[in-house]
């Protein structure tokens, strides 16, 4: 018999380690703004307070981004835990963001 999980149970396995991320954006440009909003929503839902996020404006510090190997914004990198990962775009595809951040979601048991 299919058993429905509660929202709390379905929201993914607890990640014990702290996820360190960097989000590269271009000022208030639309995709950058969207990326920040999308990432904040994902972190709130799946990481609670177990994350560290640094937001870097490439219009102000382009060299910093270049040094990190970033060419386009918005881009999100996961610094730790390894493996490092990078995702480009406004982060509207939640599943690929979760995948890049190494967050697994348990599928409801059929």
């Amino acid at each position, binding site marked *: 018999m299919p058993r429905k999980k509660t929202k709390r149970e379905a929201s993914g396995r607890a990640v014990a380690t702290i996820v360190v991320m960097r989000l590269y*954006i*271009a*000022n*208030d*440009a*639309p*995709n*950058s703004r969207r990326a920040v909003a999308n990432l904040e929503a994902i972190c709130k839902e799946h990481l609670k307070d177990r994350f560290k996020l640094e937001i870097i404006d*490439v*219009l*102000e*510090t*382009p*060299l910093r*981004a*270049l040094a990190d190997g*970033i*060419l*386009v*914004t*918005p881009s999100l990198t996961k610094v730790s835990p390894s493996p490092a990962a*990078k*995702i*480009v*775009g*406004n982060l*509207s595809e939640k599943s690929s963001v979760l995948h890049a951040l190494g967050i697994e979601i348990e599928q409801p048991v059929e």
Partner: protein
Amino acid sequence: MKSNLRALDSNPPRPNAGFGFEGRILRLVKSVPERRAIESGQVDAVIDPTTGKAFLLPDAQQALREDQARVRGLLALSSDWFWEQDEHYRFVSHTGTASGSSGIYDESIIGKTLRDPPFDSMGESDWQAHQRLLEWRGTFRDLELRCTDRAGVMHWVSISGEPTFDQQDQFTGYRGTVRDITLRKQSEALAQISREKLAERTRAEQRVERNPGNGAARGIVSRKNSAERRRQERPLGKVAKGNPIANRLLAALPRKDYKSLLAGLEPVTLTYGEVLSEPGEPITHVYFPNDCVVSLLTTVEDHHALEVGLVGREGMVGISLVLGMGVSSVRALVQGTGTAMRMSAARFRKEFRENLPLQGELYRFIHAKLAQARQIAACNRFHGVEARLARSLLMTRDRVRSDQFLLTHAFLAEMLGVRRVGVSLAAGALQKRKLISYTRGKIRILDRKGLEAASCGCYEVVKDL
């Protein structure tokens, strides 16, 4: 942009992918995920490693430009000028958006601080307090300063500002907005003056009331001549205590507007048969009836008169003044003895000019009076004496607020524009139907509902006017 880059992903990265903007991007961005993101319009900026600078893609540029325009538009709505200061709080730039700002805030301001002219209201202690806030890099809001423009005209401005920092978090100065608040300051000053004047007058009135031995001072406006003296003055206290504002028009005014009127109002008793104004004669006073009734009559060939309106506690006698005429167009005849508040024509003109709520109430009243006169005019032409008599008695009753009042045959004949015989017949008919009793000028309404039924439809129309 999107359409131009649509085919990017299908082609393998080429070392030299052409010229122009797209070509530049293709040269810089070679990895598939990044190209895919560009193609789907999810990228705002690309960093050029050769120059070490980031550049915005056209869509993002456009969006940022629109954002800036929106912010500028909102700023312009809330302020008249923007300014920037250096780290020594000296103005380094200004942008005006308001017209007529020349002379207050222009090139001459560059290099000056808020302490320097044209600003002239910042005292030493104020300046030190402000400077302390600046040293702490605090944001200040609505700092109100006086300044004098080049023509020597004084202005008041409200200044707000916030600190600015460079990329290394070094303090670079302040920037902010200025609003011209001269008008607001002026109206505040005027309001303050009138408040003080009112307080002064109230104190003076209280002094008079505390000293009742001085009988002449009790009525605020002293009587002027013996002809007016025969109007028995009713003590102000009685009117004020029993029924503070019996006149509906005065009662509808906001308390403070009524109070400012009160100083010019004088309580009087009007007796039955008294004529307050004659057609063609200048109006000396306006009257706000409390419980008396004044009939407005239009005269024809001097001896014939017809009632065209009735004024009681709902209104004022002397509306020609409101319409800018100092001469009465009707005969105002007191029909029911009672009290009223009166005001001299000169004082009324002044009060009417200054008292906006009074203007509103009077305009409403005049409109009602006009509608009433029109209805009565039609009624006089089309309806029988009996029905008109019933209508007239009901209108009087509403204003006297009593079922019993005095009206002579002669008076009724005048009101209705018929011979006395006609009045006798009509009154007799109503009396026979036990709607009224009528003996020697005393009228008593016995059956109001029945009288309403006997009256013409005009009563229903003018009842609420």
